[in-house]
């Protein structure tokens, strides 16, 4: 089975919103790539992720993961996809291990499976010595890494990450990015968002630029930089396509 993402003409208009969050957005993500979904604030990235997770129904259009409809086949999608939300989606008064045990049980995993997978991930992301500390006692970087572990317990083939490195120190960011590269090396597919263009340029095999709910362009960062006039960095490409006006 090819774990690809296929998005076709997605439209979503929230009640009371001035403009549609997604306005005919389409894109395609191949298996075993790290793809950056880049866009300014309000471009439609989070809505796109929410539709892929099956948490929001599109008004029109389709989102398919591995050929399965994200809206109607949520249970299957949930088992093959992991989502790392921008928020630290963990219980602050529980220890990291208690969080993972609870989340693993909700995924239907056995305690032995949870223990073994958690052990590997904690070690890989440098949290093995802090497994019995409460999440509230973690630093920002540790919380981000724990947030990633919680999304990987069921070993998803596809990983969506919403700004996984926002607000973390350089060391934590390096560890997270290295981990994502390793994860991709296992044949997994990663779609992630970030406002850090240098980071996206460094880690992504491809980027998709979205603005005002519409697809703008896509391709490998190096190719986009070379094909766009007067651009030497991905940030230049991004500003070229999305403009310099503020998106408050």
């Amino acid at each position, binding site marked *: 089975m090819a774990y690809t993402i296929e998005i076709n003409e997605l439209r979503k208009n929230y009640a009371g919103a001035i403009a549609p969050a997604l306005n005919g957005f389409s894109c395609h993500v191949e298996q075993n790539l790290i793809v950056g979904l880049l866009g300014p604030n309000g471009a439609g990235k989070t809505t796109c992720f929410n539709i892929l997770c099956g948490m929001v129904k599109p008004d029109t259009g389709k989102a398919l993961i591995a050929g399965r409809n994200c809206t109607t086949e949520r249970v299957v999608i949930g088992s093959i996809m992991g989502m790392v939300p921008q928020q630290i989606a963990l219980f602050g008064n529980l220890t990291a291990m208690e969080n993972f045990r609870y*989340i693993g049980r909700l995924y239907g995993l056995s305690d032995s499976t949870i223990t073994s997978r958690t052990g590997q991930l904690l070690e890989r992301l440098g949290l093995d010595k802090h497994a019995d500390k409460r999440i509230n006692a973690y630093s920002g970087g540790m919380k981000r890494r724990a947030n990633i572990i919680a999304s990987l317990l069921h070993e998803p083939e596809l990983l969506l990450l919403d700004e996984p490195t926002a607000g973390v120190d350089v060391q934590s960011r390096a560890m997270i990015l290295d981990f994502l590269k390793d994860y991709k090396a296992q044949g997994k597919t990663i779609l992630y968002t970030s406002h850090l263009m240098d980071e996206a340029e460094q880690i992504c095999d491809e980027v998709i630029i979205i603005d005002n709910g519409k697809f703008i362009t896509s391709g490998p960062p190096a190719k986009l930089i070379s094909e766009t006039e007067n651009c030497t960095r991905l940030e230049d490409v991004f500003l070229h396509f999305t403009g310099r006006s503020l998106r408050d």
Partner: protein
Amino acid sequence: MNKITATIIKEWQLMRRDISGLLLLLVMPAALIIVMALIQDAPFKDYQELRFDLLLSDNDKGSAAHQITAGLKKSKSFRIIDSLDGKPVSEEQLKHYLNNGKYKIGIVIPAGVTAEIVNSANIVVNDIWKKANMNAHLPAREVRDQIYVHIFFDPVSKPTFRNAISSALDKYITYSCSDILMQRLSALGKDPDAAPDTANQDKLMQVMKGIGVKEEPLNDKAKFSQNLNSVQHNVPAWAIFGMFFIIIPIAGHLIKEREDGSELRVALIPNAHRFVTIGKILFYTFICSMQFMLMLCIGFWVIPLFDLPPLYPGAHSWLLFPVSLFIGFAATSFGFFVGTIFKTMNQALPFGSVSIVILSALGGIWVPLDILPHSMQMMAVVSPLHWSLEAVNQIILRNGDYDSVISPLSILLVTGCIFWIGSLLANKNRKPS
């Protein structure tokens, strides 16, 4: 099932780390029931239970006055004070002490009361005798203006108090008059010089006493019966109030999980939400039930330390546990509903607390519904606290069994389901953050 158990374990882990919250959940209702039982002890005692000092000024000194005084002295309601500083109480003294509030009630038996009662009795007896074509021979004269036994109250006494005391006094005075009438009747036909036929007279009095009002038990459970008192009302009532106050931590907990993103984690896991909700409902229902049982234990063992009667749990006290589960379910579901429909703590917490206070007032938690106006009694049906109290009262006051609580428990179950389904629907329609 594993997901539900996992949720229960996780909720317990979170709760046991919030020691202050856990203590508040248990200590505050305990303090509430003790304070409310103490405060409402006096108002709950009806006038039959209380004993009042009664100043008595006897200006008659006759047998009727003596019988009235003796009757009042036998009564459990009054402590008769007919002398002050070794001297009989005068009418002036009596009015003085009532006026300055030292005493609440006083009666003055005017001179001539005995003569008037005896004369009236003789007239009645002679009349009966005459109608039987026999010669009457009891001395009688024309009836004079009626002579009343005068009753005086402290000016600040409430009308209900005055009515209750007046009725009680009237009862004793009427009884004394009847007693004299009986004596006159029994005296008829006897040789005035012969020894009094006390056996016959006592028999007649016994017959007359047998005609009256006597409280009888409703059923064979009378030996278990317990009248409504401050403890019987306040312990279950405020324990129920405390159970429903769990909506505050539940609503706060749900909003916090939504705000800090942990709810999102559950939402991302397919099919997890319903099991998590069931797990939470079960957990908090059980906590509510434990809280209720602990409050009953306090009513049973701690309340008597404050000179109040212990809580009487009824003839089928085991039923209180399943009843507490139903109440807990309704309270927990209400908490879920409040936590789901409101977006912030600032909205949910004031609404939750005020709604519980209103529903408790409507439901008869503060004061028994019987003494509220009819319109308020009709409105009580909308309060789940009313049905909770109704179910508990069936057990601890009416010694009800399983059948007697089916109706209120069904209503609590339906109420809980409505709130639960409402919160599930509200959650489904919520836009993800």
